[in-house]
């Protein structure tokens, strides 16, 4: 397994585009996650100009344990950048025809797929680690008092965050394998949310119970938008078993479709 991961990393680590896109992703992730307080101050200033007051100290954005859910939700928004890297990585194998040569040289088709999936796992774990570190540091800085029990609360958002990223990278990998051309795949990746929204809007009146099981929707349901809780609204600030199962099921389906397609195709 480790050997397969090493093979895929060997392909990527000398590829300039990989460093640019991943650099962009992890820098945005790190700085973006850490700059929430500055954004709030900016917001407060704007409010002041209109003669209103926004007491940013009343919003415990970075206080333990709120910081975990807040960071995880916002970080999920830029997973598309990482997914684009995954698309480039897999479609390159088709345009350069290196997939064909890898098989000729002695990889099995499932090994090839596994090497790509393992890279997805690694990228997802790195995102988790990054957000955990940023959360830990900012939490230490902004929390009025630091209690271990509060730090350890809500940590289940990290496995959920891992699922979210890995789900989306699996989806990107599947699209790449099905379409094989980078431009078209990236466009479809970007449009997926819109297409799903159109479909769900149309079936809303007939089978509303089905909607939570749509793939993109299942991600939104896994980790809900956390900010309304600061406007005295009730939110689901925990992870439910049902949403986890839905997301895992979709992830398995995506990877199985990749496997099925790869196994049957002439390459």
């Amino acid at each position, binding site marked *: 397994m480790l050997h397969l991961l090493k093979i895929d990393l060997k392909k990527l680590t*000398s590829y300039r585009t990989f460093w640019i896109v991943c650099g962009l992703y992890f820098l945005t992730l790190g700085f973006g996650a850490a700059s929430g307080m500055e954004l709030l101050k900016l917001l407060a200033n704007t409010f002041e100009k209109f003669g209103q007051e926004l007491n940013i100290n009343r919003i415990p954005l970075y206080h333990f344990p709120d910081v975990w859910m807040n960071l995880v939700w916002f970080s999920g928004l830029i997973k598309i950048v990482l997914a684009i890297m995954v698309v480039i990585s897999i479609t390159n194998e088709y345009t350069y025809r290196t997939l064909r040569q890898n098989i*000729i040289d002695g990889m099995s088709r499932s*090994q090839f797929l596994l090497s790509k999936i393992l890279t997805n796992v690694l990228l997802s774990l790195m995102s988790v680690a990054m957000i955990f570190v940023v959360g830990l540091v900012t939490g230490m800085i902004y929390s009025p008092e630091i209690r271990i029990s509060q730090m350890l609360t809500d940590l289940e958002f990290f496995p959920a965050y891992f699922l979210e990223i890995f789900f989306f990278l699996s989806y990107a990998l599947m699209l790449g394998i099905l379409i094989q051309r980078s431009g078209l795949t990236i466009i479809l990746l970007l449009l997926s949310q819109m297409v799903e929204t159109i479909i769900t809007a149309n079936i809303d009146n007939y089978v509303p119970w089905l909607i939570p099981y749509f793939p993109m929707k299942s991600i939104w349901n896994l980790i809900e938008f956390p900010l309304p809780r600061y406007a005295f609204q009730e939110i689901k600030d925990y992870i439910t078993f049902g949403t986890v199962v839905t997301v895992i099921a979709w992830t398995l389906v995506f990877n199985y479709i990749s496997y099925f397609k790869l196994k049957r195709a002439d*390459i």
Partner: protein
Amino acid sequence: METVLSITNLTKKFGRLTAVNNINLEVKRGQVFGMLGPNGSGKTTTLGMLMSVVNPTAGAFSWFGELPSNQVRKKIGAVLEHPIFYPYLSGQKNLELNAMIKECPPENIPNVLELVELTERKDDKYKTYSLGMKQRLAIASALLNDPTVLILDEPTNGLDPMGIAEIRELIKKIAANGKTIILASHLLDEVQKVCSHFAILKRGNLIHTGPVADASKGTETIEVHADVEGLNELLLNFGGTSSIARENGYYQVSLRDSFNSKDLNRFLFEHGVVADHLVTKRKSLEKMFLEILAEANH
């Protein structure tokens, strides 16, 4: 002799097109096996099936008596159609990657680079290589694992005469080490120069297979001239003559099987005739190839 490759009833259809039609073939250890056929005759498709990148419609094949698997493929070095590498990686890095895939020690890399004379350019990006260098890197990569079998598909395609000569020398060098080589080509001359055995494919059908040496056996023509009267009758009296034609002032004597130019020369001498011109012409594989293709048309 040990069978390296055995193909039974192998067929590939792309929709309505039958690219490979019910092929049966055996390749033995140590053969330099040529797959000869015009463009589109199904050579690459056949090799693609043998390397598991094209799924057969029907039929089977075995390497070294084993069912096809990725482990078996590691014992085969193959380049199909074009050299394929990661363009943004250097030659060296590409080979390191292939060594990982083939699970062979990277210590072989300097040796194969030396063999194909790419050592000096090994750290340049693959995309900066000339076509000849790309072909040579592909051969280096195929040899990386010291494979038992080497498969080359049109290895001289698109090369200039010097590049062609280099690659052919390289193939002969590798064949001299006793490796089994399967060479697909649409060039007769190439198969004739390099191969010990050959098969001819036409529109997906295997229409001939056998040793290259046999392809020219029994088809010797002797060009003779002597300043004597009645040479024609004398030649007709020779037991090995199958037919005589007269061209550009010379007699063209086609010989029967098991007769050769020495027999004819001795015969003439014994009848008191000394030829002042006696040239042996072997019928080339090219004529064979054209004849076989023409026959298959009927």
